[in-house]
């Protein structure tokens, strides 16, 4: 510490701070091109002061995002206090929005916000129709909450999978939150599937804006997903790819009550069908699990698929009551 005190003292904290917030604003709200990124990297790496200012603002801004999430009750174990917080926050936002409304002559902001929770059990499916004509379909073992206010429409996907067909309305953006990740529709049809660790988003039509978990370097820039784009994010990886629309449509077979497999390893097919049934399909060994299967099967009936593997591959199928074991 003693040697650095000889260094000339720089009194430019506010300038550095301004540059840092300009960069943060540009990255979060602007069109973030490859050139922007390079320019930013140069700035970020060129001085420790730049780095620190940016890291500080980035994490602080992230904290304000968490606060807005308090608008909704979150975990059931802290429902009362969260509700309390939410009420407080609502009063605050109402006050703020009132100022905004008066300022811009928009009064409809103040309408009441209504919230609901929807869950489906194993093998169930539920279709929600929103007043604006939008539609949400919940797949098996899914839990989501909705909040529709005049300022916007928000859905929290807590677990499971849902299909969204959204009537776009720029004045009332439709936002889906899955953990730290955020999707905003830009007129669209898409699916979101959230397992314990993994999030998958597939866009069938229109555009969706994806904002990743800001605490992770590889997800920091928002992406615009177009029809056919698929995002898979896990705790350790993140990828965007394109899938043929036919493939995506097949993945939506559940909406018609079927599962459609095409060159799908038997182990994966078993995992899929097990989402919908209490009676589980168990594949006895990994070699059997690697066998590829194709076809359309009813999602709520394990027997159709076991009959197929018995005939196609000559496998042994043993019904043990709560599970069906497939082996050689």
């Amino acid at each position, binding site marked *: 510490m003693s040697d650095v005190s000889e260094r000339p003292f720089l009194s430019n904290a506010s300038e550095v701070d301004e540059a840092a917030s300009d960069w943060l604003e540009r990255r979060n709200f602007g069109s973030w091109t490859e050139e922007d990124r390079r320019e930013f990297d140069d700035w970020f790496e060129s001085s420790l002061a730049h780095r620190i200012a940016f890291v500080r603002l980035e994490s602080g801004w992230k904290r304000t995002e968490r*606060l807005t999430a308090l608008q909704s009750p979150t975990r059931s174990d802290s429902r009362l206090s969260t509700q309390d917080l939410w009420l407080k926050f609502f009063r605050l936002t109402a006050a703020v929005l009132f100022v905004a409304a008066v300022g811009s002559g928009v009064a409809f902001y103040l309408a009441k916000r209504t919230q609901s929770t929807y869950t489906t059990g194993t093998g169930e499916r539920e279709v929600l129709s929103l007043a604006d004509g939008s539609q949400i379909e919940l797949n098996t073992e899914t839990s989501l909450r909705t909040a529709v206010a005049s300022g916007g429409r928000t859905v929290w996907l807590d677990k499971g999978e849902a299909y969204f067909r959204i009537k776009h309305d720029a004045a009332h953006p439709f936002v889906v939150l899955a953990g730290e990740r955020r999707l905003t529709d830009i007129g669209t049809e898409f699916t979101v599937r959230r397992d314990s660790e993994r999030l998958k988003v597939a866009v069938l039509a229109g555009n969706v804006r994806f904002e990743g978990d800001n605490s992770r370097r590889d997800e920091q820039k928002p992406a615009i997903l177009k029809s056919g784009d698929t995002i898979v994010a896990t705790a350790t990886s993140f990828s965007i790819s394109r899938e043929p629309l036919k493939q995506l449509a097949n993945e939506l077979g559940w909406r018609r009550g079927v599962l459609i497999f095409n060159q799908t390893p038997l182990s994966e097919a078993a995992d899929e069908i097990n989402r919908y049934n209490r009676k589980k399909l168990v594949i006895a060994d990994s070699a059997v699990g690697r066998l590829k299967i194709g076809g359309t099967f009813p999602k709520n009936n394990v027997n159709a698929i076991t009959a197929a593997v018995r005939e196609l591959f000559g496998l042994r199928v043993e019904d043990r009551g709560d599970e069906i074991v497939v082996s050689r």
Partner: protein
Amino acid sequence: MIERLDSDREKAARTSEAAVTALEVDVWFVREILPLESALMEYLQHNWRNRSDIYDFRQEIYIRLYETALKKIPDRPKQFLFAIARNFLINRVRHEQIVPIEAVADLEALEVAADAPTADRALLARDELRHLQAALDRLSPRCREAVVLARIDGLSRSEIAVRMGVAESAVSKYLSTGIRKLVEVFYGEPKTVRRKA
């Protein structure tokens, strides 16, 4: 010294005998140091007469903190941060040839700040809401409107520009300023709510 360390974070990690990457320091800084910022600011305000200096002081203290942490992440962040702050102030006093009595006499403040209790999470969250409210209240009306539209309504920059009837460049300015001021209140200012027995 700074130039060497941050010219290339990968290189910094590889060349120094103790390999700590700048990214690891970032994470540590956000987790351990930023929550102490309001205590640090209180400490600086308490011990330095000229308030306008303390933002530059903070920057300088953080830089020194990073420089050391890049070699080895300190085990006791609080003690470490306030030791740097204290040394920094003492050097400044020497440098300026002026001696504000408190700066030298009030060294116990270090211990007081370092031992401040950590509130439980729920209470902290509640304080944060009041904090956000205070911060929002202090923004200019246009700036506040842009922040609310971006943060709470999730609108894009161009959508905000249409809604507010201003150019996108103006929205950028509002948002940039809003980010800076909100974060300053969040991290930099002492929590207004006191829980004392």
